[in-house]
């Protein structure tokens, strides 16, 4: 085996030390900027407008937009695992004497028949960012796989309905998220309400 004599390592020069530090700093800054950009992208929004329904809103970028059901629109975070966090707006025709409580009761009755373990957590008045008065209803239910041929553990879903009575109709903003992630995701609802224009 060939042997080499031990030679004492030469100390780095000042320039080399600065260069190393700058490389590390640049890498950290790049990573940080990347993460910030990613975060911005993830929290970014894009506009939705429905002139027929008279609604303008900003919804999270990258969420799946669906206008095919009996609602004005729905968006879902389809890229997340588990229950897909959902935001939606629907409009219900109501009588001239109807109050928000009537709408909430109707929603509760209808959901209690179709959603498993549906239960109302709370109901309280709410003032929207534009000053409109609304009512906020919080509820939970258990969501399960709709395809009977797939096996999936049901998920507890935490939902919020914000009901506004306007121009003889009830506008219902719905937000639903997996119960475990509800607190972390609720800002989406606040952001959405802040952007919502009737």
């Amino acid at each position: 085996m060939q042997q080499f004599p031990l030679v004492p390592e030469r100390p780095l020069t000042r320039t080399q030390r600065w260069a190393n530090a700058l490389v590390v700093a640049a890498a950290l800054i790049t990573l940080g900027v990347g993460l910030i950009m990613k975060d911005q992208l993830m929290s970014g929004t894009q506009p939705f407008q429905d002139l027929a329904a008279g609604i303008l809103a900003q919804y999270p970028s990258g969420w799946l937009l669906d206008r095919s059901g009996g609602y004005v629109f729905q968006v879902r975070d389809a890229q997340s695992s588990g229950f897909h966090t959902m935001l939606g707006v629907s409009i219900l025709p109501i009588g001239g004497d109807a109050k928000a409580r009537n709408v909430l009761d109707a929603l509760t009755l209808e959901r209690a028949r179709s959603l498993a373990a549906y239960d109302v957590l709370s109901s309280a008045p709410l003032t929207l960012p534009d000053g409109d008065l609304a009512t906020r209803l919080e509820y939970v239910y258990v969501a399960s796989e709709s395809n009977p041929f797939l096996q999936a553990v049901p998920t507890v879903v935490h939902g919020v309905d914000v009901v506004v009575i306007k121009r003889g109709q009830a506008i219902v903003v719905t937000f639903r998220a997996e119960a475990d992630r509800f607190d972390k995701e609720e800002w989406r609802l606040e952001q959405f309400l802040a952007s919502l224009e009737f």
Partner: protein
Amino acid sequence: MIKKSGDWSSFLLRSNSKLLIAFVLMTLAVAPIGEALPIAQAQTGVSFANIIRATVYLASQFDVPGGQATSCAGSGTIVSPDGLILTNAHNVVNGLQCKVDAIVVSLSMRPNDPPEPKYYAEVEIYDLRLDLAVLRITRQIDGRIIEPGSLSLPFVELGDSLTLRLDDTVVVFGYRDLGDDALTLSRGTIIGFIAEPLGGERAWLKTSATVVGTMSGGGVYNAQGRLIGIPTAAPSLAPGAVLDCRRVQDTTGDGIVDSQDGCIPIVGFINSLRPAHLARGMIRAAQLGIRYMGHVATPVVEAAQEAVTGGPEVGAIHFSPAVNEAGQPTTFVTQLPAGANSLYLFFDYRNMRPGVVYELRATRNGDSQSTFSQSPALWGGQTNGLWYIGSAGQAWQNGVYEFTLLIEGRAVQTAQITIGGSPAASPSFSDVSFGLLDLQGNDIQVGYVLGVGDIIAARFIFRDMPDGLPWTAIWYYEGMELRRDEATWNQGVSGAATVNIRPQSGGFVPGRYRLELWAGDRLSALGDLILAGGQEGVFARIFQNLRFSSDIQAGEPGGIVASSFANRPAGLYAFIDWQLIGAGTPWTYRWLVDGEAFFERTEQWAAPESGANFWSRLGSSLLLPDGSYTYEILIGGQLFVTGSARVGMGQLPVTAGSRATGVRVSGEVLDAATQEGIPGALVIVLEAQYSVVDFVWDAAQILAMSVTDSQGRFEFDRLLPYGEFYSMIVIGERYLPLTADGIELNLADPELEDGQLEFRLELNRDLVP
């Protein structure tokens, strides 16, 4: 890397990450389900897997102390993605053969396992005489209501049962036993057709396939995988009837299962199939949400039972080689020559009611003849009248045939006929037809439905009649003898002759008339005639003044009275005036939408002889769909009333996505490193016109979407059409996305078997937090 059956270079792979190259493995695998498929099935892209999933086990439940028990069990087939199920009525209609408080729908989750309860269903529409019902899945098994249109279940399409031929191959799907066994399939061929007044020449199909009792209500498929028939047999519950009734549960709540507890009736083997074309209208009405309100609201069974007093009675069986256009025998014979290929059994019946079970057993030289036997079935006729069971277009081998007719499991008539030898010359009458004459003896009308007039003439053919032979002509009105003419024959050997009848006093009254012609002491021919309505030219004038309205007010047309309804009404009324219809006269009424009949019933007239504003009502759960609605009335098979009303656009809306052909795509999404399933991954297939770069997270661009289950398995809830190029996107949280364009699904793909593709998709972890 994407791999699909050795041809993967055409796939374009992209990755959204700059850090890693996406690694993709897409392997096709075939998951055989049930027995191996016939080659023809695979070549035509038939998905047996789809049929298996669409075949359901049905258990009718009734309330017992402490829970529910099963009263009847059978099979059914999902015929639309939103959960319509076609099955037999006798298993699911409350009060007929079963107590039904709820109907549990079980699905085959895995091919070799028994079905698992998943849903509750309700009867949407039924026809006791056809023994068919359409159910709608309405609730999850935990009781939650299912929103209309929210289901997307595997389903099958109806085929054309009118084009079936003898020896065509068929496959029967259904559940044997009481849901303890996996789905069963039985192969066979079409061995015959049975003719009856209800359903015509193809009222029943006969098959060589072995079909057990609980497969009743299941599905029979042709080589193209289309539903062409429903195995149909109903057990008789009458005391003394041979019956397989299984006690499996404590229905009395006394803690023990004994003879006091209810049992589940099961019929024996089935070889009779109701052709699918007889169910098409019912399915159409259920899909459109249209109801015939007159009968949905009225329990037909109970009403009919109240009207009938006494037990069922059946007259002697007579044989005829043919049936005329009015459903009547051409002549009666006691022997047919070799080579005969059609034979019909005629008999009169009385006091029959919906739900009565009848059966015909045939033997040839003492051996059972399943081809010409009729499995136990619900009665398809009226309370009284003339019925026939027969078959045409298939060879009858030489021999002595004996037919036994059973009502509620009890033999009520037996008759023999010999087929073979050369044609025998025996005196006979045949081809009775009727005409109405004026007082001068001139023809006014001809046919089997005539206006009420002065003289009825009956013309008939005679053959091989020797002079001096005694013969008799007997006229009946509603079963009562009116006149009997006995004479000695002197009109020659062969030819045509006429007999007339005039009313003894006053005029004829409307109703049913019959002429019997006896040659010697043998009934040789008969003809039935209906007198109804007044005389108007060459036709009887029975109905007039058909009009449509959106409502009814004090028994008269109300709301909008028109033939066009721009705003869709919730209901549609057809009003009609009538004259001179005798009680008990059979009449047929039907509704059509865009030219296709969706509701048809034959009943015996129960209204006054003449009157105005007889109405028939269509209803809907919401508003009637756009379309052209036609109301028709027939008597004796002759059309007397037809009229249409336009609703909305006057044409049914086009329904997309209702095809049941294509590829069933399923598979699993795995972690590439650990090979473990990834739960919650999203698998998207875009509409064919979009590629991955076009996708902007709009649901309108998505053809099918699935989220993987706890095992990482996914399955699209619809079949992907053949012959298209698709783009696929797979996304898992904390995994690099996987995308591919140009995935082709075509019938020639050697990896495609059983109309099913199984994908294996591997995702790489995203190392960026």
